[in-house]
């Protein structure tokens, strides 16, 4: 790796490249900076012109207002519950199934695996109408299970974990079998710890996917107290809010984006490593 860095980094070309990427990165952040500035302006001033953003006075009122309106906290909590639920569920189901498909033979396994792989070609949106009908008939909408469960049917995790388990050398579990360990014990004690990098990758993808999901929560979580943050913020993004409450809307956007952004900054290193892990498999 060090060598490749040297090669790429040689010459003055390197500095030019870096400088231009820095410029691009600054442009990249401009939209967010704009929203940030707007969030510190009063609604009344912004109603006349957003040009007001460039001069005094600035205010924290939009942020203090958030603490008085009930919605955002509740929505953040819902999103957290849903995302953690989906992530945990996917990790458990995919690890078990991945081990099963990679290591534990049974009759018809390979055909079954192909059938599961076919599921990769089914986009969530193609089944969304039927799913909505199912959950309606079961009277399950507006519950956490209704928002979480559909995410667990995705075949992506199973595919990823199967590949990962297959890549682990067979002698490791064969040695354990000679020690009279049960299948589940081998899975749990011997192989699962080896898959932590893949778990991290899958976990991050699943968490972000669930956190950012929009269409399913939009039609399943229709009671405001069950909104996820994505649906909740969308519900406040009305014409009215944009004309007469723009500053507040911007503050809400910043506030809703902040938690996951902070978590991201905190785990940044691991996320890079995790994505790298995905590429290896």
């Amino acid at each position, binding site marked *: 790796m060090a060598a490749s860095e040297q090669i790429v980094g040689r010459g003055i070309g390197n500095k030019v490249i870096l400088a231009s990427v820095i410029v691009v990165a600054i442009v990249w952040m401009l939209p967010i900076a704009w*929203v940030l500035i707007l969030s510190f302006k009063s609604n009344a001033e912004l109603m006349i012109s957003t040009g007001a953003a460039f001069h005094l006075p600035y205010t924290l009122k939009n942020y203090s207002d958030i603490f008085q309106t009930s919605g955002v906290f509740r929505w953040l909590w819902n999103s957290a519950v849903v995302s953690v639920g989906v992530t945990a569920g996917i990790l458990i189901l995919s690890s078990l199934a991945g081990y099963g498909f990679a290591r*534990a033979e049974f009759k018809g396994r390979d055909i079954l695996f192909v059938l599961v792989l076919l599921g990769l070609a089914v986009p969530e949106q193609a089944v969304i109408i039927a799913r909505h009908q199912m959950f309606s008939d079961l009277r399950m909408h507006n519950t956490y299970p209704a928002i979480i469960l559909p995410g667990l049917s995705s075949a992506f995790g199973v595919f990823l974990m199967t590949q990962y388990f297959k890549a682990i050398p067979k002698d490791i579990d064969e040695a354990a079998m000679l020690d009279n360990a049960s299948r589940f014990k081998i899975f749990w004690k011997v192989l699962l710890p080896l898959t932590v990098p893949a778990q991290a990758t899958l976990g991050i993808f699943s968490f972000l996917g669930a956190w950012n999901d929009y269409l399913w929560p939009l039609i399943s979580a229709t009671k405001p107290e069950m909104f996820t943050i994505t649906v909740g913020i969308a519900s406040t993004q009305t014409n009215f809010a944009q004309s007469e409450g723009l500053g507040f809307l911007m503050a809400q956007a910043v506030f809703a984006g902040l938690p996951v952004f902070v978590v991201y900054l905190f785990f940044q290193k691991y996320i890079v490593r995790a994505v790298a892990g995905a590429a290896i498999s």
Partner: protein
Amino acid sequence: MTDVTLSPDKPTAAVRRPTGASIGPHWANALFVAPYLVFYVVLLVYPLFKGIWMSMLESDMFDNTSKFAGLANYYRLFNDKIFIGTIWNTTWFVAMTVPVFVTIGLLLALALNRSDRTSATLRATFFGTSVLSVTIVTIVWKMMYMPGNGAIAGVMRYFGWEPLDFITSATLALPAIAVTTVWWIIGLPMMLFLAALQQIPGELYEAAALDNAGRWRSFWSITLPSIRRTMLVVVIYEIVAQFQLFGQAWLLTKGGPNNASRPIVLFIYEQGFRSWNLGYAAAASEVLFLIMAIAAVAQFFASRKRVEG
């Protein structure tokens, strides 16, 4: 969920096998995949077939007297200019975004494949937007695009130019959504390429350096061939993901103007939940499914050929 996780324990107890697992097939091994299969069948396979069945009904959100309609919904779909338009829009959107994801993602990865602090910060910058939810992303970009309040319009007016009508122009609306999408999730392809670049053995470059190969030549002869697999992964992933465009279009343009930015999924949503035409919406979903399946099969064969060849 707790119950489900415990179930794989049972086979070992049930079949009394104190002497440990045997190598070779055993029915109890199926219990590892069973929990997932339950979810797979109930929440994916069943709704898929239910959807196919619904697409052949003249069925309505609140009316339980659905009538069998055969292929009437499909016939109607392909005579529906708006629906044909959504297929075209979605395809055009995929064609606009996927190459950008690949090239910009790779360029960023090449430039930032270093271990210094600056590069780490820059990587964080480009990946950071991916963690924002689509609602926030569209609020941010509305504030950029809007002719009156928007930042871009402000800048253009400052220079004395007529502001561009991103959202109201039939030619600019979909590209505007594409830009927003690239800004939002460029981080993932970048990271995937970075990971691939870091897998390339340094000796290859050292050898090239000895040959006095320039930066450009080593890129073509070493870097590019080494990351071919990753490139394929990125292309497939992005095609599948961008075909499912919904939130950005719905929140930025509502599909307008003149249907120029209405994607297939938005059509499904509107037919189902606004016009209450469930059968018709289901038929549109099946068409989306078909397109994705064709894309998947094509990719599968393409990838086989390339890996072999």
